[in-house]
């Protein structure tokens, strides 16, 4: 894309997608140094609120936009395009020394459900160790939280339990879980992969036996119910009106595989990629 382009791009939203968007910028800045991008990581929900009020140009998301959010965008005349950029395996992590390797979906729901009072591993399964549970997880504005609450637990309150240490910054969670015996938490696969030596990932048994989170299991659709798509949302008007936004978005999608790889993400399947490309071409036409 145009090496001479210049201007600023404001990206915010999902912290799960953040490393990817940042990597995209990093690669772009070598060929188009005039394009200045700031990438924030306030969570999917927070990102959409800014996006729909016109504060940002691009919003990272670890779940599709909700109807209420789209409503706000509409009210503010923000037209947008959804582009899937990668696949994630929401990973349940635990302290390295924890003598638990696999959870069933039910156990997961029992642990994180809105009314859960579980505070010892033994309460989930008598074979589990007698150890206090310390919970870590993303805050309520995060897409990852929404995904667990709405799509996995699927309670009508669309929430999880609240007595856990919450942070939008997944890295805080990594440190919390790895530094707390008995600790467990959940976040995007990338963060687990980066810290695989200090954490362990629990396999999930959704009825078909324990499945480890990995690029393959996620792409193959075996890692249920925790595999999910990741997106960026582009403001159409900014894309057509701001050379820098277009340059960045085009570069992002063009080099999607390389970017996903560089940022250690699970790349899209070919079909998915084709879909994304056509969505991009649709902007402004």
């Amino acid at each position, binding site marked *: 894309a145009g090496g001479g382009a210049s201007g600023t791009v*404001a990206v915010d939203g999902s912290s799960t997608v953040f490393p990817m968007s940042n*990597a995209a910028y*990093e690669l772009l800045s070598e060929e188009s140094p005039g394009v*200045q991008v*700031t990438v924030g990581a306030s969570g999917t929900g927070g990102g959409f609120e800014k996006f729909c009020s016109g*504060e940002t140009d691009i919003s990272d998301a670890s779940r599709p936009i909700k109807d209420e959010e789209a409503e706000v965008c509409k009210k503010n005349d923000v037209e947008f395009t959804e582009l899937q950029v990668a696949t994630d395996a929401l990973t349940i992590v635990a302290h390295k020394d924890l003598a638990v390797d696999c959870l069933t979906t039910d156990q997961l729901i029992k642990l994180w459900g809105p009314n859960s009072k579980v505070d010892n591993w033994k309460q989930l399964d008598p074979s589990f160790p007698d150890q206090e549970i310390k919970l870590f997880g993303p805050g309520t504005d995060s897409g990852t939280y929404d995904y667990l609450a709405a799509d996995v637990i699927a309670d009508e309150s669309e929430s999880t339990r609240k007595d856990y240490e919450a942070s939008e910054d997944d890295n805080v969670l990594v440190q919390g879980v790895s530094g707390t015996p008995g600790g467990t938490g959940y976040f995007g696969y990338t963060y687990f992969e980066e810290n695989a030596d200090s954490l362990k990932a629990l396999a999930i048994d959704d009825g078909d036996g324990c499945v480890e989170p990995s690029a393959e299991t996620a792409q193959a659709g075996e890692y249920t119910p925790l595999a999910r798509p990741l997106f960026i949302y582009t403001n159409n008007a900014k894309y057509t009106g701001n050379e820098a936004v277009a340059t960045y978005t085009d570069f992002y999608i063009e080099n999607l595989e390389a970017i996903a790889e560089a940022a250690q993400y699970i790349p899209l399947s070919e079909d998915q990629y084709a879909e994304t490309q056509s969505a991009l071409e649709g902007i402004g036409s």
Partner: protein
Amino acid sequence: MSSVAARTARDLTRITTGRSRDRTPGSLIFLGGLWFSLFFGVMVLIVLIVTTAIDGAPRFDGALFTAYDSTLAPERTGFRAGILGSIWLMFTTAVLAVPLGIAAALYLEEFADNGRWYNRFIEVNLQNLAAVPSVVYGLLAVAVMALMGFERKGIVLGGAIALAMLILPVIIITTREAVRAVPTEIRHGSLALGATVLQTTWRQTLPSAVPGIATGTILGLSRAIGEAAPLLLIGLAGAVRFDPAGIFSPVTALPIQIYSMTSQSQEAYQQAASAAIIVLLVMILSLNALAIFIRNKFQRSW
């Protein structure tokens, strides 16, 4: 009262024998406690610097200063944007706060009639402002930026407004002290010759107070350069890959970069953050040293 003769005999033994009453066990324990109090803080500081320096040792390289923040190569991540950003913020803050602070201090010290309620009010108000938590200034700066109609707040100007408000009381208070240290005799000498208060201030008080004002200003700025909380509130991004270019440019700051990196789990980021902390401390300690140097070298003792 005992007779003088009796007393004399006792004296001869009293003043020489036995140990000094400044050396009784109780006194010595007390003194030991005071020593401990004094050096505890210093010890912590040393431990802090040493452990951080050891953690950051692998990263004392050129990339630390010249490279931008990197997701792709954490082991080569750098703080160029943060260092330049902090410098930009510092200068903008100084431009906003220093003239204002000095003017306010001169008014309060040289012109204000303390009998007037509004001057007393300003006085009390200032004491309060000095102790307002820095996050609150962040909240205020957000509101000010919104009022001024800025859509993007995480720019040099936004950060500088927050920091300027934060250090304004510091500058006012230290300037007043410097001004107050100029002896009244000098002032009265000038006024008795028929100079106006303004002439006296401009020609006598202010020049004599310059070293003190400089010291206070530098200390204020060194505080500003280390602040993270208000900048966090104004929305400075942690990851910026370009140099600031003007007061409306999006920007990051060294403490913000450190903050976003301290919470990253990868070893490489921890090392980078440690190294950056040493850089930040060097910047701040140099400013402090400069302030102390100015104070010792130029401050007149009257």
